[in-house]
């Protein structure tokens, strides 16, 4: 009887190198990218050829979505605390320290001051629903938006203004925003755009 001796080949592969590559890629991504900020509403900014990068600190963001609602936020948690305390005092609203803390972690808030207390007490899951975000009023009768910008300037004199609008935002809302800024003598601002791709028709 022939001895059928099958040579068992070893299928064990040394994965050490693969592990090294994986951790190198991971370190690269950790160091070079930054977490996307969660916004209350998704906005498609128009494209432009400008290549100036947005500054990361000392910036106030005015987000205008396509329905014309205005959202406002600044960077820096300490500054946000000062800002909300100023605004609450201006509208005679008392906020508990817990509510103030909740405000400081939000990047952008779009609600009139009267609805701010209830908004801050909502659960995080329901905060982004359209009904709960009414937008900051900027009409001449009740220009809360102007007061937000003024207070932000007082809290941080070096702050710069960045306007992030959707492609389909109607021009009258932008006109209102620019008019309020002009009344506060803020004449230099940045418009946030994205880099033009081949699909943009230019």
């Amino acid at each position, binding site marked *: 009887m022939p001895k059928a001796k099958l040579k068992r080949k070893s299928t064990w592969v040394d994965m050490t190198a693969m592990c090294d590559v994986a951790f190198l890629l991971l370190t690269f991504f950790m160091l070079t990218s930054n977490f996307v900020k969660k916004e209350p509403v998704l906005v498609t900014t128009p494209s432009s050829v400008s290549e100036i990068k947005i500054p990361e600190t000392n910036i106030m963001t005015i987000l205008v979505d396509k329905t014309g609602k205005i959202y406002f936020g600044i960077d820096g948690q300490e500054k946000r605390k000062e800002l909300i305390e100023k605004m609450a005092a201006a509208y005679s609203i008392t906020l508990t320290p817990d509510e103030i803390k909740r405000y400081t972690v939000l990047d952008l808030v779009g609600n009139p001051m009267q609805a701010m207390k209830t908004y801050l007490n909502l659960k995080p899951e329901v905060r982004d629903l359209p009904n709960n975000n009414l937008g900051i009023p900027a009409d001449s009768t009740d220009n809360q938006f102007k007061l937000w910008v003024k207070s932000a300037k007082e809290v941080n004199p070096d702050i710069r203004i960045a306007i992030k609008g959707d492609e*389909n935002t109607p021009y*009258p809302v932008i006109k209102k925003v620019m008019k309020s800024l002009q009344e506060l003598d803020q004449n*230099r601002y940045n418009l946030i755009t994205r880099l033009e791709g081949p699909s943009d028709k230019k």
Partner: protein
Amino acid sequence: MAEISSDSGSHKKGGKKRSKKLPSRVDMTPMVDLGFLLITFFMLATSMIKPQTMEIAVPSNKKVDEDQQTVAKVSQAVTLILGKNDAIFYYFGKSEGAKILKTTYAKDGLRKILLEKNFDVAKQVEDLKKEKVKTKMNEDVFQKKLSEIKANKNAPIVRIMATDEANYKNLVDALDEMNICSISRYAIVDLDEPDKLLIKDVNI
């Protein structure tokens, strides 16, 4: 005793003999899985693209003295009117009796008209850019020369007027064209009565 003799010279860990080699290797496969899981998390939760900005400055509301106001030649003035459905109209000079024309945001529309009007400045900027690449000019020197070219007294002045039916994209595209065509002086202004009448005639 017979076993010691042949292997005493070798440097095995723990003095293990060749025949009874116990594997001290660790299987890295789960570690690799973990690594790729973390990579996938970072790829999906973060973004490498930083958003860009366009810097603009609008004229202030403050009253300026008559002699300090820059006087513009009528021949230099170009007015753009942004209408609804991406329609864009323009005319040269004063609004009374001006011929209003229609154009588009495409390359052959607005850009062509502005480049024609701004031919000298645009050409000088092109030449400066080529020179920059050739002579490896310093960025500050380049900016200084650029502002000198743009300070040309005969350059056109563009007024951008947007109707209430225009959208934000129209405004940004118009401002973008200012940048591309190297227009040094432009302003966003409100529509006034003569312009409103002109628009009505064209019936947008």
